[in-house]
């Protein structure tokens, strides 16, 4: 186990720059999730840590060692690939023991490690099978088994669950977390699924366009996103954004005025982006609370909650309510906003104002 330190890591393919200076300190034993939209450079970053991609500039340390120019095999890392990359011509046991075999371990040692890993992952009965004879979830486990037998300093995962169906994904999510709690190996996990990020990470790194947008614990990112991108990316359905200006009465967007939280970073007349998560709307059954009226566009009952698309001024927003709501398109409902849960961003969305 070891720290992983990225200092000003950059990557270009010829003239094309894809990673623009990433700084990241990962503590020993931490579970860090890299998340971001497709093409933002998550895989590239992970593969640079693995040694599968050269580092154009910057310093990468694992433990105290600068590993920029080391081969993957000398970095003491293990990686779980999206396609699992199990060797089709080897049995489960051989697949799992393969790396040990190439590190000069003897047969008894290999057997012991493979059996230990198979025991943890529930693969003991499958050791003699070939990958083609396994289900998706079993293959996934073998891929993890191959990573843990060696007891590496760092685990790297690149979207390991994206080939599984929704149910299995939830199960495996739990298993990976449990495995981490048990082994306490430093883990870097790439996904584009923010639910995976929220549920698994000790800390989340949000990437966008080859840059780090924010680093933090899942709920910190949820509660205090540093900019509009992170605010919109974390949470589902995503945060609603309204653009407008600050006036005496509050926040003005088209003909609607919304309440403003106290904030030091704003001045009168400033153009800002006003963000509110869907669950922070309330049906206005408390007279006396500041309320606005919205026009219903679409009602989607989910059973446990109701998702309502509504028009606020000239912006469509989504609200999620605990109550069951009846009504049709064009009806007007009165809603109030949870003023403590309002996020204010600068007009270009780049910085948080409150």
């Amino acid at each position: 186990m070891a720290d992983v330190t990225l200092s000003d890591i950059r990557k270009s393919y010829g003239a094309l720059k894809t990673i623009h200076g990433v700084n990241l300190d990962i503590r020993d034993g931490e579970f860090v999730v890299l998340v971001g939209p497709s093409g933002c450079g998550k895989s590239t970053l992970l593969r640079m840590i693995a040694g599968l991609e050269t580092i154009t500039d910057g310093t990468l340390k694992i433990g105290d060692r600068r590993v920029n120019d080391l081969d993957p095999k000398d970095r003491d890392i293990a990686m779980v690939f999206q396609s699992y990359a199990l060797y089709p011509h080897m049995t489960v046991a051989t697949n799992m023991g393969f790396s040990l075999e190439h590190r000069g371990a003897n047969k008894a040692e290999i057997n012991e490690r493979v059996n230990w890993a198979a025991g943890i992952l529930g693969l003991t009965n499958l050791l003699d099978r070939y990958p083609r004879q396994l289900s998706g979830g079993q293959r996934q486990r073998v891929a993890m088994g191959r990573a843990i037998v060696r007891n590496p300093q760092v685990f790297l995962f690149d979207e390991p669950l994206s080939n599984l169906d929704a149910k299995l994904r939830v199960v495996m999510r739990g298993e990976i977390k449990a495995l981490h709690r048990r082994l306490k190996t430093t883990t870097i996990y790439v996904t584009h699924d923010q639910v995976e990020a929220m549920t698994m990470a000790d800390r989340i790194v949000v990437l966008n366009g080859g840059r780090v947008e924010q680093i933090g614990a899942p709920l910190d990112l949820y509660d205090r996103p540093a900019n509009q991108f992170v605010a919109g990316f974390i949470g589902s359905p995503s945060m609603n954004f309204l653009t407008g200006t600050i006036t005496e009465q509050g926040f003005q967007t088209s003909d609607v005025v919304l309440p403003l939280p106290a904030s030091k970073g704003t001045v009168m007349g400033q153009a800002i982006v006003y963000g509110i998560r869907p669950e922070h709307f309330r049906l206005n059954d408390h007279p006396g609370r500041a309320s606005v009226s919205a026009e219903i566009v679409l009602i989607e009952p989910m059973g446990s909650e109701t998702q309502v698309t509504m028009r606020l001024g000239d912006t469509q927003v989504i609200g999620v309510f605990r109550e069951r709501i009846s009504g049709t398109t064009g009806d007007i409902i009165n809603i109030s906003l949870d003023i403590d849960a309002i996020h204010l961003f600068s007009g270009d969305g780049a910085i948080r104002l409150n």
Partner: protein
Amino acid sequence: MKAELSPRTRTALYGLMCVLLIPFVFPTWWMVTSSIKPISDIFAFPPQLIPQSYDWTTYSKVFELQPFVRQYWNSAYIAALVTVGTMVVSSMAGYAFARIRFPYANTIFMIVLLGLLIPSEVTIVPLFQMFLKAGMVNTHWPLILVPIFGAPSVFATFVMRQFFVTLPAELEEAARVDGLGRFKIFAKIALPLAKPALASVAIFTFLHSWNLFLEPIVFLSSAEMFTLPQALTQYTDAYGGPMWNIQLAAATLTALPVLIVFVIAQKQFVEGLAHTGLKG
């Protein structure tokens, strides 16, 4: 197109295929049967589709008139060497072109592909002169070295490259993380997975070497050194006319073993060839 065929269509199709089969199958039958007929019967009228009487002495003449065992061995060992050598050379080159990033890879690949454009017939004159200077005329070296390293192996390299291109990159990356170097990745991961492509390369190469005719007659001059195709044509009478029964017996001995191997392993043969990546 794939709807169930009516019984009448079925019969018609079987009939058509049986007629079409005649020129494919009959010559082999005729070769084998004629080789055991007495010389007086081989041009008999009406033609004897099934031999009326047998004469096995023809076969002993095959071995008396020429060092046929030696020639058989020549063909066999040359074909075996060429097959194994080509598999090594072309799988390595094919792998590198498909999988390793190195400077000028594309340019070099284009140069190598030139070999497909330049049949060995084009270069036979200078090749003869080169091997003459090297003192290798009337040895088997030209028949071994040129196919393994020269133009004939380019097709094999191309087939291997097409195969390796389809191999998932993540497999190799997993192997790198597992601690394997380039050569081990090639030997332990890529090559074992390339068995179907290797099989088709082996079949192609073996048949090519086994059938080689122009090169042996250009390079070889003594009966001891001859390969089978060349030897077959040497069973001639005093006037240079073919001794048919003996030629047919020697031809049968040449053709039958490969044919038998083919029948046994026909699935690998046919499917291997269909897998050469020629599909586009």
